[in-house]
């Protein structure tokens, strides 16, 4: 089953590029949601693939239940609740369907590509645990974090920045796939809940931004400076 992990991560990386280049807000939200849901589904795959003793399966009914509950929560929050909330916020704010970049489309795409290659090269030089050497999570995580940063810093609209933050968080989540055994259930749930509440608060503030300024562009948010 762990064979599915790397193809899944490759799709997550491709979705980074899609989110970096698309100019359609709805499609961008769908791409980020797909990435979140996909990572949620990779959670049980990573669980079976990265157990420190390779032949171990989920041992008790509790660990099986825990795995199912967490997978369902992550897919529900990242793949359904957050995108639904963002789409609703965009509709209520009546923002236009185009999202634009301050530096065009080609430059973020190029930088995203460079970041991904660098992440692949850099991960090779890191000291890795034996069970992680031949897998993609570390380069995929670093590349996704960097792509999240790129989206966050290049998008002109407030909603684009929220989506960049979610991509960045997805990158951190990919790293967390290596540590499933080490992070307790309560902490995993807390992290997902914090992300949801974070996006929720951002959504509310986003609505206020869109009411105060046309097109909810963050370029209006630049009066406070030295």
């Amino acid at each position, binding site marked *: 089953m762990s064979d599915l992990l790397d193809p899944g991560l490759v799709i997550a990386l491709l979705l980074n590029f899609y989110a970096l280049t698309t100019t359609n807000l709805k499609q961008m939200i769908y791409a980020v949601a797909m990435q979140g849901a996909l990572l949620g589904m990779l959670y049980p795959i990573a669980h079976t693939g990265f157990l420190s003793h390779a032949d171990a399966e989920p041992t008790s009914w509790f660990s099986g239940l825990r795995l199912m509950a967490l997978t369902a929560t992550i897919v529900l929050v990242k793949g359904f609740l957050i995108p639904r909330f963002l789409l609703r916020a965009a509709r209520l704010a009546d923002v236009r369907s185009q999202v634009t970049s301050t530096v065009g489309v080609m430059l973020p795409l190029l930088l995203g590509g460079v970041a991904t290659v660098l992440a692949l090269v850099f991960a090779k030089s*890191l*000291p*890795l*645990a034996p069970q992680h050497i031949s897998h993609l999570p570390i380069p995929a995580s670093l590349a996704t*974090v960097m792509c999240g*940063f790129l989206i*966050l810093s290049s998008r002109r609209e*407030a909603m684009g*920045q929220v989506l960049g*933050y979610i991509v*960045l*968080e997805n990158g*951190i989540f990919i*790293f*967390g796939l*290596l*540590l499933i*055994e*080490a*992070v*307790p259930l*309560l*902490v995993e749930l*807390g*992290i997902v*809940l*914090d992300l949801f*509440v*974070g996006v929720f*608060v*951002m959504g509310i*503030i986003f609505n*206020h*931004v869109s009411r*105060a*300024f046309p097109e909810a562009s*963050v370029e*209006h*948010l*630049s*009066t*406070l400076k*030295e």
Partner: protein
Amino acid sequence: MIVLLVLVPLVAAAIAMLVPSNRHRPWILPVTAVCHLALVVWMLPQGEQWAMDRWLAIDPLSRLFVGFISVLFFICALYAPAYLRLRLGRDNRILVACLLVAFGMMSLVTLSHHLGLMWIAMEATTLATAPCVYFNRNPKSLEATWKYLVIGSVGIALALLGSFFLIYAMVQAGSESTLLFDELIEHSHPLSLPWLHAAFVLLLVGYGTKMGLSPMHTWKPDAYGEAPGIVGALLAGGLTSCAFLCVLRFFHIAHIADDDQHSQRLLIFMGLLSMGTAAVFMPRQRDIKRLLAYSSVEHMGMLVFGLGIGGIATGGALLHVIHNGLCKAGLFLAAANIHRAYCSKTTDQVRGVLKRLPWSGWMMMILFFAITGSPLFGPFVSEFQILSGTFDSGNVGRGITFLVLLLIVFFGMGSVLLGFMLGPAEEVEGVGSPQQFRESFLLILPIFIAVGLTVLLGVYTPSFLTAWVDQAVAFLQRIPLD
């Protein structure tokens, strides 16, 4: 019982959401603060305590921080009813509830003995304080809230990545991974040094963003400038101190892993950079709250500088958390009075504060001398201790740089503040008239308490506080049994 310290503010927040009266709701804040303070006074002398499978604990570090946060919140809460009576035109339901949730989460950060729980609580403080920054509902406060939310969330996300790196440092070194601090510090765990280095950098950037260390401080002048004074006081005194506690916790782990040198170098660099940034930006400020924000950047720099130097400077840094927090609380509350009186907070319109608002003005002047490290005040004691530690450890160049930056900040901050304070209290067009605002007893009392404590701690450090700081320093320097 430790759980009560977190639960009491959260239950009070739920009550605040249910209370319909805008006039009566703010009184929940001082009532909660008194209950919390009573719990703290009762619990802290009892020594180390544990709860929730050792996820929560009162250890020498958390004792110092939870005690201080409780006193700080008491001062701010005492100010709230009179302040919010001046702002009855605005619904304060969200503000009061969010302040209480933030207080509960700050208590949780100080008591957390679990790496993951501490991160969740710290992230929750960002989410709870963001709506407080937006209290004034104008485009500037909206901009400040957006920046605070986005920069704070990204910073805290990096801290999560740093925490994951730390766990990976255990996995890669083949040791049993744990997120409990006491397991990490009581038994030596082999850690992979490259991952630990990367983890510390990310954690310092992440929690340093919450502290407002330069160059991640950009949210701070905006958020402090646009938030109500009471929120600024709580952010500058409480939230930043909680973020410093997170840095302390991870520094402790680095110390256990025998990796002090790398982390100390980083801390000293970030400390001096933050002080330098404040020294550059303070003299050109025209906004009193932004000025205080840069003062906060400076003092956060001092904290990490002291920690980086080590030895007695660490004790100085811990003491400085309290001194800085008390001064900042007083300064922000005094600034709030000035803002209310003049309907402005910039040098264009605020002049002659000493004549028009003598109580707030004079207390702000006293606190200015205190925060810039003048003798007879608390910060002088802690800054002197940091400086002594620096010279004692042979860091002469760093000590001189520290002193020079202190001097520049003194003149920079003084020149701006004197512009506000002195001169005739003439009417300026568009500025609120004296009849509209009076310095009532409840608007002055909390500032007076902050000033009183600052003066008291300047001339006499109570023996229990000295013992607590010494125990916290010994705790940080403790090495594992095996």
